[in-house]
């Protein structure tokens, strides 16, 4: 590989990584947390019991919807499992006569038309929270902005990430030779080794998650192939996402069959668990029940659906097998979301995600460390340096603090508070704002210590609070064999302890005295300065 090609890609790598690095850090961190989305949905509603009998919940959901929304246009029930907090149900009321129903999917799901059915089949009584779903949504919709803007920003960031990974591979000269190299106490070179390690060791994951991330947004980011082939996009979507034609309401009342019977039949036909149930025109003679397979049961995100007649449960329709490109796209989206992953695979995804988050963070810090060593006057760095350093502290130190604050808000905010779920999220951004302030006021070393230390302390103590004041603490969850909840508490303690240790490391760091760079006038040799033994360590190779 020619030297100038490598150099050109090195420049590209630095800038594509730097310009969007802070956005990428937040996306990676939120996305990594989102792998435990369902677990957090449960953890953030500690009042709720684990679901043992999904069909009991389903029966309860049907009874609830029958009572609450007997004449709705449609019902939606998310089939629960022992990992979910409950069965999320939505219903869509009949449109007012004369009002057009816009779009294929109909109206927005408002807060009034949803409920959570708990393990006993009754509506769950739990604190209002977005749970783990917040982290999932946030990593592509962000917050406080129209989702289209957020997705464009995330899409551009993902493309920058892809370019950074590919150019990084080209630039990395001795990728195999230096595979196990970690020079310690060597400033910029240590940070480079760390950045390389987190990048290379999980390289297949990073490439996959970035490319597939772009694919999940492809309809918005790259609609041009559609434009080239279709004047009427409805034709394409009907081909790619086939569904049963919606039946008009007949007006004749007819009771809906027991959904449990239909779902059991569907699970038999699908050869796997059901994921969701959609009932169109319940209580009417023209009612239909569509059961979609669970995404956990297959790699593709596009699970097949089966449609049944609502009155007697007769099987009516099945999704036709998709074509090759559709299967590929579905598999790519499925790989990204990782819903197919059981615990073992999910842990690998999570660890790789942590690696990716550290890769982005170490890259951003490396930029600063490298340039600090080259500053002509370390006391007065140029504006670009100060800006990057401030952003590093504010984002890498601030966002994790926000997450810790949000988890505490989930524990402490009053149950009856209005807009409680939104306020948990406001707590995240308020804490992040405070971190921004700290980054602006304290010098960098002190700011890092304060932010990392505070985050560490907050995370490490939540499980203690859980034991003392929450319905379920670590001893209880371990005894019940509820490893999902126990695992989250243990992970929080581990992250907390690691951050505290890192904060201590930063606080006690004493950089080695540098040899003076300036040449003695007259062309004399540089005067050596004795330093601490730190750069006596040379790599053995």
């Amino acid at each position: 590989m020619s030297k100038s090609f490598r150099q050109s890609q090195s420049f590209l790598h630095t800038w594509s990584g730097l310009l969007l690095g802070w956005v990428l850090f937040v996306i990676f961190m939120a996305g990594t947390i989102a792998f435990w989305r369902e677990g957090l949905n449960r953890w953030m509603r500690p009042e709720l019991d684990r679901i043992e009998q999904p069909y009991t919940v389903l029966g309860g959901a049907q009874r609830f919807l029958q009572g609450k929304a007997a004449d709705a246009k449609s019902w939606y029930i998310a089939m629960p499992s022992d990992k979910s907090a409950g069965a999320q149900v939505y219903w869509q009321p009949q449109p007012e006569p004369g009002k057009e129903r816009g779009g294929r999917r109909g109206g927005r799901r408002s807060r009034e038309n949803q409920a959570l059915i708990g393990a006993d089949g009754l509506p769950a009584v739990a604190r209002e929270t977005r749970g783990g779903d917040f982290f999932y949504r946030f990593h592509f919709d962000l917050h406080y902005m129209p989702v289209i803007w957020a997705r464009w920003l995330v899409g551009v960031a993902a493309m920058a990430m892809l370019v950074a990974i590919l150019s990084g591979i080209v630039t990395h000269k001795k990728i195999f030779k230096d595979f196990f190299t970690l020079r310690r106490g060597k400033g910029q070179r240590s940070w480079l080794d760390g950045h390389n390690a987190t990048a290379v060791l999980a390289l297949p994951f990073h490439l996959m998650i970035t490319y597939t991330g772009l694919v999940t947004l492809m309809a918005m980011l790259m609609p041009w192939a559609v434009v080239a082939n279709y004047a009427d996009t409805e034709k394409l979507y009907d081909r790619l996402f086939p569904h049963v034609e919606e039946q008009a309401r007949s007006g004749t009342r007819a009771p809906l069959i027991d959904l449990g019977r239909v779902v059991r039949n569907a699970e038999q036909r699908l050869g796997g668990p059901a994921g969701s149930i959609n009932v169109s025109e319940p209580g009417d003679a023209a009612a239909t029940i569509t059961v979609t397979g669970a995404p956990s049961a297959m790699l593709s995100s596009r699970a097949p659906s089966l449609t049944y007649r609502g009155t007697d449960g007769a099987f009516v329709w099945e999704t036709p097998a998709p074509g090759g490109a559709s299967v590929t796209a579905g598999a790519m989206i499925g790989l990204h979301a990782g819903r197919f992953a059981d615990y073992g695979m999910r842990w690998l995804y999570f660890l790789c995600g942590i690696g990716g988050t550290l890769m982005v963070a170490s890259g951003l810090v490396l930029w600063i460390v490298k340039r600090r060593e080259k500053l002509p006057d370390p006391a007065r760095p140029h504006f670009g340096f100060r800006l990057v350093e401030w952003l590093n502290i504010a984002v890498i130190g601030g966002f994790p603090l926000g997450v810790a604050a949000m988890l505490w808000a989930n524990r402490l905010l009053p149950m009856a508070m209005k807009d409680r779920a939104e306020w948990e999220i406001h707590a995240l951004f308020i804490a992040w704002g405070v971190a921004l302030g700290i980054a602006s006021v304290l010098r960098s070393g002190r700011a890092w210590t304060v932010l990392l230390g505070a985050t560490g302390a907050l995370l490490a103590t939540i499980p203690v609070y859980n034991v003392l004041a929450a319905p379920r603490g670590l001893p209880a969850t371990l005894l019940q064999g509820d490893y999902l909840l126990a695992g989250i508490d243990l992970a929080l303690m581990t992250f907390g302890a690691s951050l505290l240790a890192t904060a201590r490391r930063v606080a006690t760091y004493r950089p080695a005295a540098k040899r003076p760079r300036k040449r003695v006038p007259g062309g004399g040799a540089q005067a050596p300065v004795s330093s601490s033994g730190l750069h006596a360590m040379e790599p053995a190779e």
Partner: protein
Amino acid sequence: MTATTGSKGTAADAWKRRGDMTLRIVAAVPLGYAVASLWAMALARLLPGDRAEATVAATLVAFALCAGAAMWAFAARSGWRAFWTLVVAGAIAGGLTWLSIMGSGRL
């Protein structure tokens, strides 16, 4: 920027560098996306088989083309070379797409 030659030479060099960099950045970001999009359109028209499948396949590939264009924009010998090669690549794709649509229309 340290002056090693006469001041007139370095000022011109500096502008040359800025121009080169600007061309590369334009080549990488707006132009690269446009070229990838045009090739997505051309592939969607030209790939054999079912139109819906070809459309999806072309879209999946387009992201790799976009990244490739950005890498080329910086690897090319000069900013100008990066720019005109991508324009040509885009024009070819655009031409193929246009001819195909003129020929058999859209669904």
